[in-house]
């Protein structure tokens, strides 16, 4: 059924259709509307046989999820930014224990300086945590991916993070084709756990493992993610059979076949990039896009296959590893190892800075002429950066960097809203 609704609302409804049994909620922007919606649905009886627990922290949210998932309940939670960092110990624990929890990450920047707007720093910080990480391009896909996520998680007994851009998607009103309960029931079977805390068949879960077996346990976590490389496209195909649309999968090519230059990106920015590419194509430029839907597992073969003909690759990412550069780009380099291609990293959209078509045109044209440096920060205000560096050279007590920069910009407050 077509609906005009907020992204968070679409996700809440999709989660509800998956018949969750335990939902743990702790508020953090921009994830709040999702758990608020679910709380209302549980209380109104629209989601039956479900416990909705208002916990006291994200650490508790993931811990409650661990307990309920290990007891055989389909479990969901959502978080973002600092919340994801606060639950990290439990995030690793959930994947280590092989518990198929599904969690939305409403992608948001990390502090300090505190910043509530969108980028991918939060989920990228957890790229090695053992969870499957799926990125949604729009609200339709965000809703669909949650339904697929439960199926993938439960089939592999691995947790799945569905990443959707904070505010840009969570708070955007878009048309969404909401699945029906019958469709979801036909797609998603009830959860049958691989291990469960059951007095009729007692097991010990989470005991200590020494050097004699730890490597094998860790390798199996990797092997499961390699299985996910086959399962994710399979689930996407099954989804299409029932729901009639393309959603999910590993990668999504756009005007790729003959493209000399290929842009790689994740999430909602793909829309702006596609618009820009359309305009560049109209100017006769040979350029295309590859969207990465599954960041973990990283689809090395699919990316190599899709990009082997490209002369240059521009990885545009809303995060970066301080002290080295691109995070996604590093993985792309590994996928393209041994091929004669130029690979550029463009860091853009940090802390909610708009990624405009004008900026994309400029940067992509520089890349096409191989005039871009290997690591480029899009729309970085160099004079502001240099003024602060200069100030630090001259004054020992130079003060809080973020405040200095805003004063240099002549702004009395952060450009909120």
């Amino acid at each position: 059924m077509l609906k005009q609704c907020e992204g968070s609302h679409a996700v809440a409804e999709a989660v509800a259709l998956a018949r969750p049994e335990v939902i743990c909620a702790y508020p953090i922007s921009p994830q709040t509307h999702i758990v608020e919606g679910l709380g209302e649905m549980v209380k109104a009886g629209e989601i039956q046989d479900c416990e909705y627990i208002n916990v006291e922290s994200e650490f508790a949210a993931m811990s409650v999820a661990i307990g309920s998932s290990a007891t055989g309940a389909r479990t969901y939670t959502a978080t973002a930014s600092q919340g994801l960092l606060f639950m990290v110990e439990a995030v690793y624990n959930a994947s280590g224990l092989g518990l198929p929890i599904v969690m939305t990450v409403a992608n948001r920047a990390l502090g300090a300086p505190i910043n509530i707007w969108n980028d991918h720093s939060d989920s990228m910080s957890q790229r090695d945590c053992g969870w499957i990480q799926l990125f949604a391009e729009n609200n339709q896909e965000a809703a669909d991916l949650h339904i697929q996520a439960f199926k993938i998680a439960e089939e592999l007994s691995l947790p799945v993070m569905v990443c959707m851009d904070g505010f840009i998607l969570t708070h955007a009103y878009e048309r969404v084709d909401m699945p029906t309960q019958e469709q979801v029931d036909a797609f998603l079977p009830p959860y049958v756990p691989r291990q469960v805390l059951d007095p009729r068949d007692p097991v010990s879960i989470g005991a200590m493992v020494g050097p004699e077996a730890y490597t094998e346990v860790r390798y199996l976590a990797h092997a499961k993610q390699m299985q996910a490389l086959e399962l994710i496209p399979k689930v996407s195909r099954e989804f299409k059979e029932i729901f009639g649309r393309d959603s999910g999968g590993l990668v999504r090519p756009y005007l790729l076949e003959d493209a000399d230059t290929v842009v790689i990106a994740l999430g909602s920015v793909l829309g702006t990039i596609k618009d820009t590419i359309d305009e560049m194509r109209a100017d006769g430029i040979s350029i295309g896009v590859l969207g990465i839907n599954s960041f973990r597992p990283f689809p090395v073969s699919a990316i190599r296959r899709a990009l082997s003909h490209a002369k240059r690759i521009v990885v545009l990412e809303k995060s970066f590893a301080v002290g080295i550069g691109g995070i996604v780009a590093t993985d792309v380099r590994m996928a393209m190892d041994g091929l004669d291609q130029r690979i550029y990293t463009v860091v853009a959209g940090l802390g909610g800075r708009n990624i405009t078509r004008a900026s994309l045109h400029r940067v992509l044209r520089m890349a096409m002429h191989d005039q871009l440096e290997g690591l480029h920060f899009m729309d970085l205000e160099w004079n502001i950066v240099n003024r602060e560096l200069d100030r630090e050279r001259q004054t020992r007590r130079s003060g809080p960097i973020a405040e200095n920069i805003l004063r240099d910009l002549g702004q009395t407050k952060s450009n909120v809203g």
Partner: protein
Amino acid sequence: MGHQDIKFYQTGTFTVGNRLLPPEQRSVQADMERTNSLNSGHRACQGCGEALGARYAIDAAMRATGNRLVAVNATGCLEVFSTPYPETSWQIPWIHSLFGNAAAVATGVAAANKVKARKAGLALPETRVIAQGGDGGTTDIGFGCLSGMFERNDDVLYICYDNQAYMNTGVQRSSATPPAARTATTMPVGDEPGNEWGQGKNVPLIAMAHGIPYVATASVSDLRDLEYKVTKAMNMRGARYIHIFVPCPLGWGSASQDTIKLARLAKETGLFPVFEAEYGEVTNVSKIRQKQPVEAYLRLQRRFAHLFGKKPRLDVVARFQEMADQNIRKFGLLGSDRAAVGFPGSEHK
């Protein structure tokens, strides 16, 4: 059973042979049907108070729940000595997740069981859950999750086995470590040797402040009382907390055969008040049978040896005595005294 009804005929001892009791009053551990939930063969030290306390607590909970029990364990000695894979001493479904989240994991187990029960058409879940941890996992790192579980009144019994320091990592100070005690992070050097003198963190009282249905303290020196309290707790619903005093020969520098003796002295001096509280009010206090000076308790432990060395610190011993006497007044631990007015809830008793 009314635990106060038992008469102890054997003078000079608190133990009473089960043969002297009617069958219904005999301990769970004396029963051939006991479940040995924490089975023998584990790696606890000689004289470990925690192993003893856990064995009695979990078997009593098993009997009370008709053997439908799940245990969630915080990281710590109990977790490590009972379960390096592929061995496990646990005969019940058992999960260890992290150091600081046992209460929250147990909340998740309880929530899942509630949903399963509802789907099966049952009013209440048959399978119950216990969370357990040491004092570090309870009073320090797990405190946030514990308070959250209390505040929501989740159907969890949390048991803290209090041996007054981080023993698993090599005897470091916790917020349950008594003042002046030597630990690896509060060494007996300088002018004020050992742990700083402070309030510590009294989690039983903090639990009571949450107004939860049941809070109790217990000791491995009175195992029948411990069984009674666990049984009572498991016959209630909602958030419940039992804080069990478990001496640690390794961490305290005490003889392994003195574990029960030390636990008894902690109670008989007044240093560890043994009581029950319901909905924030003290309902029962285990009286001191024969009051002992704190010195009798302190002298048996090398962690307090610096108080009795070349320069005895009788002033510090006197402060301990005042602490014990204050507990005696506050909880009404002697004779027929009632708890002093002003103690939370006691004025209504």
